[in-house]
């Protein structure tokens, strides 16, 4: 499906607009009952279940964002009350972090693709996989309950002593919801780790794994080691509210910073849970678009592991102005600068991969390019924030808000859309309209920058985060940001149209529509329930594209 072909009707395997044989024999048609979907242990069906759920929560969290940006159109707090605004940004954060970003790529594309990419029939623990989805749904239902009954006002960070002692929102229920969904994360991570260690097909050595698998492996290490600390921290807040058994009460000699240490011990690695899978996706998209082997495979693979390890050593940079000791702050600052290095390595290697590649401007590639640009901005501003002397001025301002949205939204959400546009033919067995895909990619990039770049300036000028009342001379920048949000909202909705259209009306996809490497492209689109008729034996290196040598004829 290269960009030279605008009309896909003449593609191999574009057998017309009915259901192809591949679709009829695929996992999608292996069982029609509700039971066969809701009690499935097929990783591909579970991935679809997750895809629907995380998309649902993406829009709930997005609705909260819409409320926020609408209120910020004017400098007065006139749309929501102060309390209401607190609840809006808390809901936005809680839902987006735990019910969208953290599960997004791993539970959808990770679940679907990892067994296919390593030549296995399923994950190591298929029933645990299904259980993890039900746990996710349970946590989601608790969150919906919190939403309907009025919400919580503490911010997604649940800082004490507001959360443990003084808040009158539904803190315990919100903490319970997140506690529950944490188990879903842990089980997913556990499943991936054991799968990658134990279920690789013959010949699939560590050095032949797709980089998508490496990054999900690294993500899983973080999932299993960090999430339990969040669990105990939330349990401690609940214990203080429900049983009056607290350890954070300042009046008794407790330290709110103990809470922050425990919370950020998880929550900083959590942001790498959110971005590492995206980095893995981008590695796949870039090699596919360039039709070249990745430059420096081991450096890119190793950088995922390095990020996962260093991620655990930097959390104190969230506490530079909280009263943390200056010595601890300096240690955390230095380590925070270090953790940017492996991310930088990835960006350099992607760039080198594209150099002299045969690039095709298909939607996945456009999303990948958007990712690289936005991730670099986000990453560089992270370095800025890592320096204590600067952070003292911009902590808790919109500068920080812009930084993390550049990575989370500009980065992870772009990668999510890129993955969706790349693997859609594999997952659904349908091609889609590439022109609309390109339009969406460009619109997302434009809308995103309009939304979030002004926020860097707002933060620099001193606008605090989590405030809906602000100095009137900042209104123009806020209005630019809100307009951008409107464009983004439209851009996120457009794919629903053409992707759903494709399910019904587009031609069937061949096994390898992009003509790329990877075991997942050797099975039909969509794959049969058992993935492989025979377990493959791998004999070639990954990204085994022909590389032109000097003097190999002219272009």
């Amino acid at each position: 499906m290269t960009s030279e072909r605008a009309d896909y009707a003449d593609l191999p395997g574009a057998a017309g607009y009915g259901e192809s044989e591949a679709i009829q024999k695929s996992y999608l048609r292996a069982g029609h009952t509700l039971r066969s979907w809701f009690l499935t242990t097929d990783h591909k069906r579970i991935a679809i279940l997750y895809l629907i759920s995380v998309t649902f929560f993406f829009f709930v969290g997005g609705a909260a964002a819409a409320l926020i940006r609408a209120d910020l159109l004017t400098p007065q707090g006139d749309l929501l009350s102060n309390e209401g605004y607190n609840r809006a940004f808390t809901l936005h954060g809680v839902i987006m972090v735990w019910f969208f970003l953290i599960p997004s790529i791993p539970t959808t594309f990770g679940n679907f693709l990892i067994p296919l990419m390593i030549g296995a029939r399923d994950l190591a623990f298929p029933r645990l996989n299904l259980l993890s989805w039900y746990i996710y749904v349970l946590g989601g239902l608790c969150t919906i309950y919190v939403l309907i009954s009025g919400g919580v006002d503490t911010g997604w960070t649940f800082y004490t002593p507001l959360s443990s002692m003084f808040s009158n929102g539904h803190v315990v229920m919100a903490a319970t919801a997140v506690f529950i969904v944490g188990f879903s994360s842990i089980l997913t991570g556990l499943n991936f780790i054991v799968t990658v260690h134990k279920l690789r097909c013959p010949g699939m050595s560590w050095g032949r794994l797709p980089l998508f698998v490496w990054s999900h492996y690294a993500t899983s290490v973080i999932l299993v080691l960090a999430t339990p600390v969040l669990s105990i921290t939330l349990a401690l807040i609940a214990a203080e509210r429900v049983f009056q058994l607290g350890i954070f009460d300042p009046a008794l000699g407790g330290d709110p910073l103990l809470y922050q240490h425990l919370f950020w011990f998880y929550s900083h690695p959590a942001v790498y849970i959110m971005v590492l899978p995206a980095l893995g996706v981008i590695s796949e998209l870039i090699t596919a678009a360039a039709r070249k082997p990745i430059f420096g495979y081991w450096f890119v693979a190793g950088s995922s592991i390095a990020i996962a390890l260093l991620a655990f050593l930097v959390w104190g940079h969230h506490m530079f102005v909280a009263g943390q000791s200056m010595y601890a702050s300096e240690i955390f600052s230095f380590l925070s600068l270090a953790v940017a290095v492996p991310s930088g390595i990835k960006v350099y290697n992607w760039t080198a991969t594209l150099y002299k590649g045969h690039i095709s401007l298909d939607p996945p590639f456009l999303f990948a390019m958007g990712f690289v640009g936005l991730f670099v901005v986000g990453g560089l501003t992270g370095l800025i924030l890592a320096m204590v002397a600067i952070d003292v001025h911009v902590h808790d301002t919109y500068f920080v808000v812009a930084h993390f949205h550049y990575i989370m939204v500009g980065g992870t959400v772009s990668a999510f859309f890129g993955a969706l546009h790349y693997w859609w033919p594999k997952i659904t067995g349908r091609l889609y309209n590439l022109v609309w895909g390109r339009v969406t990619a460009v619109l997302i990039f434009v809308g995103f920058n309009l939304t979030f770049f002004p926020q860097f300036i707002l933060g620099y000028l001193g606008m605090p985060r989590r405030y809906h009342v602000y100095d009137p001379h900042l209104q123009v920048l806020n209005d630019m940001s809100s307009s951008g949000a409107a464009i983004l909202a439209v851009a996120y909705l457009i794919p629903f149209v053409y992707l759903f259209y494709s399910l019904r009306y587009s031609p069937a996809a061949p096994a390898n529509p992009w003509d790329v490497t990877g075991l997942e492209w050797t099975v039909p689109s969509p794959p049969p329930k058992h993935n492989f008729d025979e377990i493959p034996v791998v004999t070639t290196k990954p990204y085994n594209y022909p590389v032109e040598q000097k003097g190999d004829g002219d272009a």
Partner: protein
Amino acid sequence: MSAHIRLMVAVWLGLLLLLALTVGLSFLPLGDLSPLASTGIAAAKAALVVWFFMHLRQDSGIIRLVALAAVVWIAILLTLPWIDFSSRHWL
């Protein structure tokens, strides 16, 4: 099998001995060495349980790596906040 069980019993006796040691030491005025001693002895007991009772000595390298990772990570969780709390009032 009986040799195996004899080994388990020997480990158990060692554990009881270490328990007696740690309780006994708690009555001595060790000052700042006291937490080091009690944690060290606890680590020794845990090592015995993990190596023999959980038969880590028979398991593969990757399993041992997982066990080691748990130790390293809890060390991170304990050490860095401790650096903060103990250095707050320097200078």
